[in-house]
């Protein structure tokens, strides 16, 4: 074997080892996720029953169901969507379709980066300061939704903007050349084409909102309520906060209920994730450009 052949062989061995190392790193990254999800499903599934999903909690949360928490998370998510979707998509349209590249648009971008980086608990503080205390909305669904909406905004804006920019600019030029106004062009051509991408971003943003605890800690969440909230000015129970409470604050809490709650929360959030993925892959298959 010549020297150069030996080097080549050694290099190949190094490469094989290196690739194996990389694969190992990827495995180390993925394995804990599989374990975590597996544990939650394994221990949580036996807890799931019709009663668990539809009954009120009993015995100081140690028995019964988690219905009010599910309802609360549902309403908080809807409330977040009502505020964040028009605002976020509007902002994305402004950045992608209307704004020229000026100092002000750069300032908007910096602001969005900034919003995206603010810790969720700081959003909680802000919501407490502005909505709960200053605007005197109290600990309520509306205060929590507004807080979550502002937190969700950067996710929606950046994904929606990306979806809008992916629409070929030739469509816009053609529409304008046929006597279309800017808004007609956006409304009839660009938005419909970008819709799947926008929807994906919206759902991913709401998914994050639905799973967050810290922002609603002082703005919306209640430990236990004997009945469902009757208006948006009532406090509410919520799945993530409920899980936090029964995992850390209640002595003698049956593990099964904890796992069951975790699994319901996980399903709620990952179900949204799945929908987003489906929308994205369907749209990709259908796209005409």
């Amino acid at each position, binding site marked *: 074997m010549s020297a150069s052949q030996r080097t080549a062989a050694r290099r190949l061995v190094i490469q094989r080892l290196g690739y194996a190392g990389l694969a190992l790193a990827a495995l180390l990254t993925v394995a804990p996720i599989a374990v975590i999800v597996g544990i939650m499903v394994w221990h949580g599934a036996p807890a799931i029953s019709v009663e668990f999903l539809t009954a009120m909690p009993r015995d100081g949360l140690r028995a019964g169901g988690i219905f009010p928490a599910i309802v609360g998370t549902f309403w908080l998510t809807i409330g977040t969507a009502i505020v964040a979707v028009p605002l976020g998509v509007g902002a994305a349209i402004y950045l992608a379709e209307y704004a020229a590249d000026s100092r002000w648009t750069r300032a908007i971008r910096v602001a969005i980066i900034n919003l995206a980086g603010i810790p969720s608990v700081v959003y909680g503080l802000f919501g407490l300061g502005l909505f709960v205390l200053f605007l005197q909305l109290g600990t309520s669904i509306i205060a929590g939704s507004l807080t979550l909406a502002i937190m969700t905004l950067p996710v929606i804006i950046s994904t929606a903007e990306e979806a809008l920019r992916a629409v070929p600019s030739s*469509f816009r*030029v053609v529409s304008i050349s*046929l*006597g*279309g106004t800017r808004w007609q062009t956006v409304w009839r051509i660009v938005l419909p084409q970008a819709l799947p991408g926008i929807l994906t971003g919206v759902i991913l943003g709401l998914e994050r909102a639905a799973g967050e605890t810290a922002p609603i800690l002082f703005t919306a969440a209640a430990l236990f309520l004997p009945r469902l909230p009757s208006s948006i000015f009532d406090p509410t129970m919520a799945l993530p906060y409920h899980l936090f409470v029964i995992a850390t604050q209640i002595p003698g809490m049956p593990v099964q209920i904890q796992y069951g709650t975790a699994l319901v929360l996980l399903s709620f959030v990952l179900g949204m994730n799945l929908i987003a993925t489906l929308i994205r892959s369907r749209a990709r298959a259908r796209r005409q450009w």
Partner: protein
Amino acid sequence: MTSHQVGRASPGQVNGEPKIRIEDLVVSYSDGTESLRGVNLAIPPCAITVLFGPAGGGKSTLLRTINRLNDLADVETLSGHVWLDGADVLDRRTDTIALRRKVGMVFARPVVLPMSIRQNVFYGLELAGERRQEALQEAVERSLRAAALWDEVCDRLDEPAVALSGGQQQRLCLARVLALEPEVILLDEPTSGLDPISTGRVEDTLQDLKARYTLVLVPHSVQQAARVADHAAFLLGGEVVEFAPGRQVFTRPRDRRTEEYVTGRFG
């Protein structure tokens, strides 16, 4: 005839007013690319006027200035006048929406909108506020016939327009413009992506259309320019070198640069 000169040129044998009169048009972009440096041109009605010359001469810019589509570009300076039926297109008060309905445009690459053939045709009319179904349907047939596409697509109007071949797509783009009943149609290398047969069809269609419309065409080759031009302007470096009836430009050019370009010695 002898009035054909560099600078202030107008085609001699046109009777009456030109449809479009361009005066001292100067356009430059902020990134310093292709621009116009004082263009004067009088485009006659109901004829095919060809703007030809090497790349970077300002043909597309000139075309896009006529319907103010250049507003979308990064224009640094813009001066001069583009008179259309006596009104200055470049005036700030010009209603660009109405202008673009009156001055249609067909692009180099056929861009069909992501909708059905039918919807593509009446898209412009819908934007203009036309809601009556009969009017829309009537426009579909009329425009597709005028663009010589009707026979090929009349039984599948509701299929997606992207399913059409390149040549069909380009004629659909033409039909889409015709649906608005414009007065001027600007064509920016409309056959550059097409095979010879499709190109021939589009050129034939243009010959039919010139009875009713003022056509301004940037051809994709000198040969095409020679085939279709009633009038031809040779643009070089943002200036009009020569403007005359097509036959004259392509057989007896006055300017040496025109002659060299037409005979293929540069470009």
